[in-house]
């Protein structure tokens, strides 16, 4: 019984996150359009797109790994999300955070990447491995400042447990990691740019070079699943950042807490959107080098600052 309720809660939680994630995507597109001086598509356009892709009559499959790739990807997103407590103290949005700590979440992010890479790889299209090679390389690069920031945070709160970390940030806005450990946050936020894959780090999808990269062969429902995951995964990442650096979302009223979550994630996302809207794309090696230089240095400083000062 307990399990069924847990699953039910998880479903609710996932739905909320997915919807919010997709809506955020829609909002972002709208903002981009406004920056360009256009109207832009409606905010619900991502939902329409998902329905449209799912309603294709024929789907092309290159093999069972191609078939499973999107599933892996989505499972990665789901898993990542499910191990993050969304709202402090909430049973519904607590998810399965007893399964592990931030390390688990970090590695679950890889799960989807790897699955997608395999699925796309079986497509046999040359652009897929190119995109994946870029993506994995970039990931290895932005993972450095991010992990340094996480280590710094772990030192700071002497915990890797997300709930504990969120709890430690309660009380005042000044307790947020943003203010107590700004260097780590800076490093992490820069690596968030890479994670989100907006310009200048949009080398994976890079429409003009390797048209949308890995999922070039993806079509129909496969694409639909991937699109759904984009929403969920974006939400998961943002919630993770919110929890680690921006005090999490905690309020006795669950709706208020959700609202806090939405506002915070919105602004975190906006950061990468603003950067993305104002910069052109890096070349791959520029991107890797960038992450391995300044953000890494900041991350090291963050550790040194927290550990030894």
């Amino acid at each position, binding site marked *: 019984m307990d399990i069924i309720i847990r699953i039910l809660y998880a479903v609710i939680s996932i739905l909320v996150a997915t919807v919010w994630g997709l809506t955020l995507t829609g909002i972002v597109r709208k903002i981009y359009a406004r920056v360009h001086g256009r109207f832009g598509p409606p905010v619900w356009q991502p939902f329409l797109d998902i329905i449209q892709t799912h309603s*294709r009559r*024929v789907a092309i499959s290159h093999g069972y790994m191609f078939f499973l790739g999107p599933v892996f990807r989505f499972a990665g997103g789901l898993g990542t999300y499910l191990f993050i407590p969304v709202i402090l103290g909430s049973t519904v949005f607590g998810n399965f955070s007893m399964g592990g700590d931030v390390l688990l979440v970090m590695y679950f992010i890889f799960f989807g990447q790897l699955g997608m890479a395999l699925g796309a790889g079986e497509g046999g299209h040359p652009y897929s491995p190119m995109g994946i090679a870029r993506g994995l390389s970039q990931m290895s690069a932005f993972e450095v400042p991010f992990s340094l920031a996480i280590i710094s945070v772990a030192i700071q709160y002497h915990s890797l447990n997300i709930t504990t970390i969120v709890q430690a940030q309660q009380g005042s806005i000044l307790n947020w990691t943003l203010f107590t450990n700004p260097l780590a946050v800076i490093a992490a936020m820069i690596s968030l740019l890479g994670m989100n894959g907006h310009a200048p780090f949009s080398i994976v999808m890079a429409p003009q070079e390797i048209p949308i990269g890995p999922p070039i062969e993806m*079509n129909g429902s496969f694409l639909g699943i991937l699109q759904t995951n984009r929403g969920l995964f974006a939400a998961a990442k943002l919630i993770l950042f919110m929890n680690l650096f921006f005090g999490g979302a905690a309020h006795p009223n669950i709706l208020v807490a959700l609202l806090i979550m939405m506002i915070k994630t919105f602004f975190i996302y906006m950061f990468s959107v603003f950067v993305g809207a104002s910069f052109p794309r890096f070349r791959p090696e520029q991107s890797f080098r960038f992450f391995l230089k300044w953000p890494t240095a900041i991350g090291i400083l963050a550790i040194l600052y927290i550990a030894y000062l």
Partner: protein
Amino acid sequence: MEKKDLNEIEKEMKLANEGLPEKERILFSDARPSRVEPLNKYLEQFVNWARARSLWLLAFGTGCGATELRPLMTSRFDVSRFGIAGRPTPRQASVFIIGGYASIKTIKRIVRSYEQMQGPKYVIALGSCTINGGMYYDSYNTINRIDYYIPVDTYIAGCMPRPEALIAGFNRLKEKIQKGECDGMNKYADNFDWYKKNQKQIIKDWNMPDYNW
């Protein structure tokens, strides 16, 4: 007896792919496109509604035909407000715009791209050259009518048609989609042999499978 029949039927369902060298035949699928019936009525209406509001473009522009497509994306006309967005790959696109004359060389690419799109798929023939040959009607190396080779849903006439005309054309397409009238995919499958015959008449160096999945 029965078994043999089944085998024969299966063989008929396969494409011969005679244009390909022997060793390449195993690299291409030899399945024949088949008719896929729509979903039940209400479900189909719902998805058609969504399809109409989420048109993913695959633009095929030769000559001057595509020049008027660009402004569509800009802030002045901004087709994205209609849910229209470009897609870089035919796999994901649902609308195929063929702008400009189709030469004997490009018809091969047009056919291939069209066949690589996943149904339901819609075709817009843009400009006179595409529709009836236009000023190149008597050229030795252009084709006059695109709809001999692939099924076309909407024609946007003009030389060149203005963006406004294009938007009107899109609206027309949306209406047709919503009404469930755009069934080019099944039309192509039903008349596959006829289309193929026409295509092969034009394309002499046929080095691809009969149907490009």
